C-alpha cells in the first residue's frame, strides 16, 4: 500500500476528524452532571483492550424537511461493538448524550439493530447503556419506526440471549419500552430517569406538579413500579455490578451458566441453620441468612431487592453452579404473596427457565394477602402468573419448606404435584390448608359459640391442631413431600438433588406458546 497515496491519507484524515469530535469540554459537561461519557462507560465495562467498535464513521441520515439542526457527526450518537467481559463475549451499545442529546435517528437506530442481530446470531448477551433524549424530532416518523425495529429485535431475541439495559441518563417516551422489554434493568441513582411522559407534560395535561426524581427516578422504579431491578449510587458501581451479574448467566439458551469454582468455605453440614427459624411461629426472621448459609459463600446476588421485598429473588451458586433463588421473606409483610411479589416471582422464574438455571425455593408463606385492595386489583390473575411460571418451568426445581406452607400459597410455591422435582421440609414446617387459628374458628364455630370459655377451648384446639395437622410429618407420610430433613444438612441435600437432576429432560408439548394470564 502506498502510505503517501490519496486513499491512505483520507483514511488518516478521517481518524483525525473523529478524534477532534470528542472534545474534553463535552466530556466535562457530562462529568458535571455526575455522568461518564459513553466511551468511558464502554472502557469500564469491557476487559482492557478487547472492545471492537463497528460503524464508527456512519453519519446521520438526511432529513426530509428543514426543521431544527442536525449535527454532521461521525457515529450518530451511539457507540456499538463487542468485546470481552471477564473473558466472555458480550455485545453492547452505548448512547452518547454529547451528540444531539443522544437522540435516536434512523442511522443511530440502524446501528443498534445491527448489533442486536449480531448478538442473536452469535448467541451472546447484549447490554444497552441508555442516555438519550428520545426520538430525534428532526427525523420524524422515520425515527419512530426505527424504535419499532429495535423493539422487534429485542422481542425476537427474548429468551435466546440475555438482554440487559442500563439506564444512565434520561429515557423518555417510546424509549422506555426498550429497557422494559429486556430481561433486567439497571439504573443509576439521581442521574437516570424513565417515564412515558415527562414532568412538563404531566404539568400541562393534569396540572400535577412532580419532580423528575419522584416521577421516574431510580428509587421510584426500584421500589414502587418494579421497572428497575438493580440500582446503584454511581456509574462505576453500576458497571461493576453488571459485570458480576453477567457472570451468573449463560451466553444463550442452549448453554449452561458458567461454572465459577467456589472457595470451598461453605459447609455442607452447617449447624447454624438450626438456630435461625424461631420456635414462635409469630416471630419473624431474615430468610437471607438461610440463603447465605446454603449457597456458596458470598455468592448471593439479589435481584429486584427493593421491589416487593416480601419475596426474595436472586442468583447464587452451589458448588460453583448458578441457581435461581426464590424465597418468602417472613421479615417483610410476614412473607405473604401479594400482587407485586407474584409478578416479581413469576418473571424471575421464567427467566431462570429460559436460561437453564435451576430454581431453589425456600418457603415460609402464610398465604395470599387478604383484603379488598388485593382482590380488586386482581390478585387472582396475578397470583396465577406465579403458579403458571412454576408449573411451566422445566429446569430442575427444588423446594425447602422452612416453616409455614398454608393453603393456596403452598400449592403455588413449587409444590410436588405442580411439577416440583424435590420437596424437602424442615421439622419446623407447618403444612396445612390454613393456620391453626383460622382452622379452629371454622371447624369448631358452633362449639366455640356454645361454650362458656371460648378462649380456653380455642387455645386447646389450636394446640391440638398444631400437633396433629400443622406439621410436616403427615405430608411426608402421604408422600406429598420427599423428606423431612435436619436443617443443618440442607446444603448437602440440595446439592445431591441438583446432581440427581443434572440430566433432567422434559418433553414440552408442541404448541405455539402457552397463554400465561398476563
Amino acid at each position: 500500500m502506498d502510505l503517501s497515496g490519496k486513499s491512505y491519507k483520507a483514511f488518516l484524515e478521517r481518524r483525525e476528524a473523529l478524534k477532534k469530535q470528542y472534545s474534553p469540554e463535552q466530556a466535562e459537561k457530562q462529568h458535571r452532571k455526575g455522568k461518564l461519557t459513553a466511551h468511558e462507560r464502554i472502557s469500564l465495562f469491557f476487559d482492557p483492550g478487547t472492545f471492537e467498535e463497528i460503524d464508527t464513521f456512519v453519519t446521520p441520515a438526511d432529513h426530509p424537511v428543514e426543521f431544527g439542526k442536525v449535527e454532521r457527526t461521525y457515529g450518530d450518537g451511539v457507540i456499538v461493538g463487542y468485546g470481552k467481559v471477564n473473558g466472555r463475549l458480550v455485545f453492547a451499545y452505548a448512547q452518547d448524550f454529547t451528540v444531539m442529546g443522544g437522540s435516536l435517528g434512523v442511522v443511530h437506530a440502524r446501528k443498534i439493530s445491527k448489533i442486536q442481530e449480531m448478538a442473536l446470531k452469535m448467541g451472546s448477551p447484549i447490554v444497552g447503556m441508555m442516555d438519550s433524549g428520545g426520538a430525534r424530532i428532526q427525523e420524524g416518523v422515520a425515527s419512530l419506526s426505527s424504535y419499532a425495529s429495535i423493539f422487534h429485535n429485542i422481542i425476537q431475541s427474548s429468551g435466546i440471549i440475555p438482554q440487559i439495559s442500563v439506564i444512565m441518563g434520561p429515557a423518555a417516551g417510546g424509549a422506555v419500552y426498550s429497557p422494559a422489554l429486556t430481561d433486567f434493568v439497571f439504573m443509576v441513582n439521581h442521574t437516570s430517569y424513565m417515564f412515558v411522559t415527562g414532568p412538563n407534560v404531566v404539568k400541562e395535561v393534569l396540572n400535577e406538579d412532580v419532580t423528575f426524581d419522584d416521577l421516574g427516578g431510580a428509587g421510584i422504579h426500584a421500589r414502587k413500579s418494579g421497572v428497575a431491578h438493580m440500582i446503584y449510587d454511581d456509574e462505576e458501581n453500576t458497571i461493576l455490578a453488571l459485570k458480576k451479574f453477567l457472570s451468573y448467566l449463560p451466553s444463550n439458551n442452549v448453554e449452561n451458566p458458567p461454572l465459577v469454582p467456589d472457595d470451598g468455605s461453605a459447609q455442607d453440614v452447617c449447624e447454624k441453620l438450626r438456630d435461625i427459624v424461631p420456635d414462635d411461629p409469630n416471630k419473624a426472621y431474615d430468610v437471607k441468612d438461610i440463603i447465605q448459609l446454603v449457597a456458596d459463600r458470598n455468592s448471593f446476588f439479589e435481584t429486584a431487592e427493593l421491589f416487593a421485598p416480601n419475596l426474595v429473588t436472586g442468583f447464587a451458586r452451589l458448588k460453583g453452579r448458578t441457581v435461581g433463588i426464590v424465597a418468602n421473606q417472613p421479615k417483610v409483610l410476614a412473607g405473604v404473596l401479594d400482587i407485586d411479589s407474584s409478578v416479581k416471582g413469576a418473571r424471575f422464574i421464567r427467566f431462570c427457565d429460559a436460561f437453564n438455571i435451576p430454581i431453589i425455593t425456600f418457603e415460609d408463606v402464610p398465604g395470599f394477602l387478604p383484603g379488598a385492595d388485593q382482590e380488586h386489583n386482581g390478585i387472582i390473575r396475578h397470583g396465577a402468573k406465579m403458579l403458571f411460571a412454576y408449573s411451566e418451568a422445566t429446569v430442575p426445581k427444588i423446594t425447602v419448606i422452612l416453616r409455614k406452607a398454608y393453603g393456596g400459597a403452598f400449592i403455588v410455591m413449587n409444590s410436588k404435584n405442580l411439577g416440583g422435582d424435590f420437596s424437602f421440609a424442615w421439622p419446623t414446617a407447618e403444612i396445612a390448608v390454613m393456620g391453626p387459628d383460622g382452622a379452629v374458628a371454622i371447624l369448631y364455630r358452633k362449639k366455640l359459640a356454645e361454650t362458656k370459655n371460648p378462649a380456653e377451648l380455642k387455645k386447646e384446639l389450636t394446640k391440638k391442631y398444631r400437633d396433629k395437622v400443622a406439621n410436616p410429618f403427615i405430608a411426608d407420610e402421604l408422600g406429598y413431600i420427599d423428606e423431612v430433613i435436619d436443617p443443618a444438612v440442607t446444603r448437602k441435600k440440595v446439592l445431591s438433588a441438583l446432581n440427581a437432576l443434572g440430566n433432567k429432560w422434559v418433553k414440552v408439548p408442541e404448541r405455539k406458546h402457552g397463554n400465561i394470564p398476563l
Partner: protein
Amino acid sequence: MNARLQINKLFALSSENRKFSFRVPLTNKIRIGKREYTVRLKTDEKYGSYILWKNRRYPVEIVRSRQNKYEILFNDISYVFTVETPFSLKRMKMINTGRGKSRHESVKAPMPGKLIDVLVREGSPILRGEALVILEAMKMQNEILSPVNGTVLKIHARPNTNVMKDDVLVEIKTE
C-alpha cells in the same frame, strides 16, 4: 476517542466522613503520615482472617457488604465505610450541593393490622433500619423499620389499636 478510564486510586470514606486513599492494585504497604509500613492479610483455619503487623495478629472480618458499602470488624472494633473512586467522590459532592435540606418522612402501615408496641419516643434520634413499631398482621409480628436517618417528630401509632393500610404511624425529620 480512547477515553480510557483508568482507576489507580481509591478512597475509603468512613461514616464520620474521614477520607483515606489507597492505590490500586493493592500492595501490602500502607503509609501513615510519612512512614511506610508493611502489613499482611492472611487467612488460616485457626485464626480466620487477620492482619499481620509487626508479628502481631489483628483479627479482621467483613461483617456486611452491600454495593460499595462495607462494615468491617477490625480488632473487635466496627468500622463502616464506602469505597469511592476519584470520580464518584467528585460526583457525590456535586449531588450533595443543593440538597441537604431536611425533609419529613412519614412511615405508613404496609398492610392492615394491629399495633403491638411502639419502640421509639418523640424526639429520639433514629438510624435507618432501626425498628419503630411492631405491627401484627397475618399472624406475624412485623417490625416496621425506619427508612431514613433522622429524629422522630411525631408518633401517631398507639399500642393495641388497629390500623389500616397506609395509615401514618410515625413522622420522621430526616437529617
